[in-house]
């Protein structure tokens, strides 16, 4: 059949982002929001060189991209449909702002990771 819209694309990213937000994001919040500032992590976590080396690993780069970018797409889709729920028109402007922001941020993150 011919598709007149690409909602499945956004929904798939939203769904994948939902899984990530549910399973990985709480762990990341715990690590970076609590354990790290409270100095509860091993010494190596406070060493710039070792963290930098970790982030240069291809697998870690991939994990960062997946966790951050998919969470952003999840949020964008939620906000876009949430706007519709509260009666704000969901025209091209809202679409561009929500998905556009997620897309641009993902691209920026990708460039950052590639040049790290």
């Amino acid at each position, binding site marked *: *059949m*011919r*598709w*007149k*819209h*690409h*909602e*499945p*694309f956004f*929904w*798939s990213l939203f*769904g994948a982002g939902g899984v990530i937000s549910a399973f990985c994001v709480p762990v990341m919040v715990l690590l970076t929001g609590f354990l790290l500032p409270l100095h509860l992590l091993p010494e190596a976590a406070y060493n710039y060189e070792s963290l930098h080396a970790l982030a240069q690993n291809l697998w870690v780069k991939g994990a960062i991209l997946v966790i951050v970018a998919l969470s952003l797409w999840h949020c964008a889709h939620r906000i876009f*449909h949430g706007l*519709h*729920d509260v*009666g704000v028109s969901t025209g091209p402007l809202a679409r561009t702002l929500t998905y556009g922001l997620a897309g641009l941020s993902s691209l920026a993150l990708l460039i950052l990771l590639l040049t790290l």
Partner: protein
Amino acid sequence: MTIPATDNTSETAPSKSEAGITLEILRYIPGTHSEPTFQRFEIPYVEDWSMLDALGYIKDELDSSLSYRWSCRMAVCGSCGMMFDGVPKLACETFLRDYYPRPIRVEPLENFGIERDLVIDQEPFLEKLESVKPYIIDAMANAPSGKPGAPAGHERETIQAGENRQTPKELALFDQYSMCINCLLCYSACPQFGLNPAFLGPAAISLAHRYNQDNRDQGNADRAPALNEEDGVWSCTFVGYCSEVCPKSVDPASAIQQEKVRGATDWALSWLLPKGAR
């Protein structure tokens, strides 16, 4: 709930000395009312009365002009759906005792046009239901003498064509979705349907899913256009209230998410496969 001590008459023959309960019913009779208005009815409180019994009492004893749909009295026909204190329920399995002694607000199912009193206009739903072809398509295509893809011929539809087997496991894939009684409570519960009446909605999608999941059916492609439209499965934001109010535990929300996965697969294939094979 106990009947007050002063009461010594039988439950089924209420007298004026008994406890009462108030029903505030949204009335609308075209030509009589300019707009829907609430009307209060004081009726006897009888512990084992369902709302349907209460409405029957009003119609028989107080106001014969009151209109509402009902038939089976046992949560099977799906005709008695209405709102009680803003929650969609079947009148035949909702009881006065769950509200007593507070007054109860009775309104027609939300998100639908009112035809008269508690009777809503089901026509838009029936059109949606028809659009998803809720029946087995080309059932004998895989029967021993049937050829897949061949047009359904009359002789192939007979028992001579062989039996169409289904294992308990295959049945379990759609069994729960076949329990829908088209009561439309889920449509009244759905905020997305409230915002966008074009949304195909929970029950129609559940029934489409029921046939899509049936191994005897060959109609997935016939149902895809209605399901894959923007107003098809994609209008759902997985609020889940439809599944909460469903009196038959159909879980329409789950059917919709599963059809989204099917739709997303179709969409991905439409990019991957060469044009002719789509």
